[in-house]
């Protein structure tokens, strides 16, 4: 208890829990005698990761690149769309439902269409990563832009601020924490979108999704499938870690969500 409460031991509880889960994993496999082709043991996954490093490492970079481009376009595009939607009540009422509708289209349907439109390869995968991470940015940024504190808006009126000042000095900074929480969600989704796209399109060799297609067709390669899951997790951590760092840099001095000690 007292160790957990110490400031610098935030890493200890997850580490202990992780070790416990690993032990449970081994125990389950051993007790129920689960064969490797159903559930490989953790050390077999690590071994597969090492064995296939020459394929997995470039694939992770490739997938990460597609996800990154899609993510960046989604963040920029999402922010611009949100600013447009928030600029007029009419525009938001007219367009927001349609943004939602587009979001409802399953990736499985998008993939073949994008492959036809953008051809197989990086561009269609990037487009999928974009589509899947676009909406959270739009939704949370729009929310942030339209929920500007009324009192602060009136203050700006009393202080005779111009419309431009109101946008850049009040509405945008006020929406920043909302925007960043949308970006955080987008960061978790973009790599998932890219891998799903690669898997479903099956047209981009040297990518994690494509390797997954190959490995899963061989029952002996279950540890490799798990190794891909591990690499995908690491990729996701890189994305989310980068955004969390950016969020901390921008907000820790003034916003409750980034207070130290959380």
């Amino acid at each position: 208890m007292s160790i957990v409460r110490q400031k610098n031991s935030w890493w200890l509880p997850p580490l202990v829990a992780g070790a416990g889960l690993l032990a449970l994993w081994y125990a389950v496999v051993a007790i129920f005698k689960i064969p490797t082709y159903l559930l490989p043991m953790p050390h077999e996954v690590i071994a597969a990761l090492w064995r296939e490093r020459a394929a997995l490492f470039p694939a992770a970079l490739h997938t990460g690149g597609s996800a990154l481009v899609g993510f960046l376009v989604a963040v920029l595009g999402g922010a611009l769309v949100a600013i447009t939607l928030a600029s007029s009540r009419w525009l938001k009422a007219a367009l927001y439902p349609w943004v939602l509708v587009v979001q409802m289209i399953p990736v499985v349907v998008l993939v073949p269409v994008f492959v036809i439109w953008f051809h197989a390869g990086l561009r269609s995968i990037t487009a999928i990563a974009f589509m899947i991470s676009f909406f959270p940015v739009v939704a949370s940024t729009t929310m942030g832009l339209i929920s500007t504190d009324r009192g602060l808006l009136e203050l700006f009126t009393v202080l005779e601020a111009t419309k431009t000042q109101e946008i850049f000095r009040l509405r945008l900074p006020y929406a920043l924490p909302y925007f960043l929480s949308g970006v955080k969600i987008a960061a978790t989704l973009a790599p998932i979108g890219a891998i799903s796209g690669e898997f479903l399109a099956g047209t981009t060799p040297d990518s994690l999704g494509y390797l997954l297609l190959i490995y899963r067709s061989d029952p002996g390669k279950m540890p490799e499938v798990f190794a891909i899951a591990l690499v995908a997790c690491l990729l996701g951590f890189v994305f989310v870690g980068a955004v969390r760092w950016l969020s901390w840099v921008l907000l820790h001095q003034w916003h409750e969500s980034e207070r130290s000690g959380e």
Partner: protein
Amino acid sequence: MSALRAASVALESLGKRFPQGPAVLANVTLTAQPRDFVALIGPSGCGKTTLLRLLAGLTPPSAGAVTIDGLLAAEVRERLAFIFQEPTLLPWLTTRQNVELPLRLGKKLPDKQNGQVQELLKLVGLEPAAEQYPRQLSGGMKMRVSLARALLRQPGLLLLDEPFAALDEMTRNRLNEDLLRLREQTPFTAFFVTHSVSEAVFLSNRVLVLAANPGRIAGEIAVSAPYPRTAEWRESVDYQRLVTRATAMLRQTHAMP
């Protein structure tokens, strides 16, 4: 601190009615001389806050007119400052930056104004907290920032909408005393909305008691005690008598139809 003078205010048959609603204010006529400190008290729904918003030009009147130094509120915005119920600080700016906000929004930030910001921070006792962010400040400190920001504009007319209502009594009393101390240095006319009769009597030279449905002036009590008033005045018989009188008048307006 300022070469500017306090504003005179005139309300002529002022009325306010929101669309499809009953009249919030009806036929309010009032003049305030420069340096008047007018406290507005009355039951909930008597239009105190609406009256203040009309003075600030935040909402247009439905009838009658508001003039400040003979001009409409919207034309003399730079002459007035508004202190809201909430401190309304920008959370991403430090204390100093928040106080400077009116300058930052203005066209220039001349160097000589920096000395003025520093002086104001000192006056409201916030110099040690100048580089802190609002979330690090107590409620009373936030209100002091709000006060300093309002005074930076050297307003001829200061409008205060229950600014200290959320604070504990000790902090509130201290801020009341500080406000009067600041009034000695910056000449302004003030309209102060409050629910607290004792606060109204302590601060103002005129207590206006409003009645509701529709909002109107039901009575006025003159407080002739000289400024600057200090905490000691609160102990005086004179003060207690005025609080009792104002409370009685307020009770009568509650009984009004």
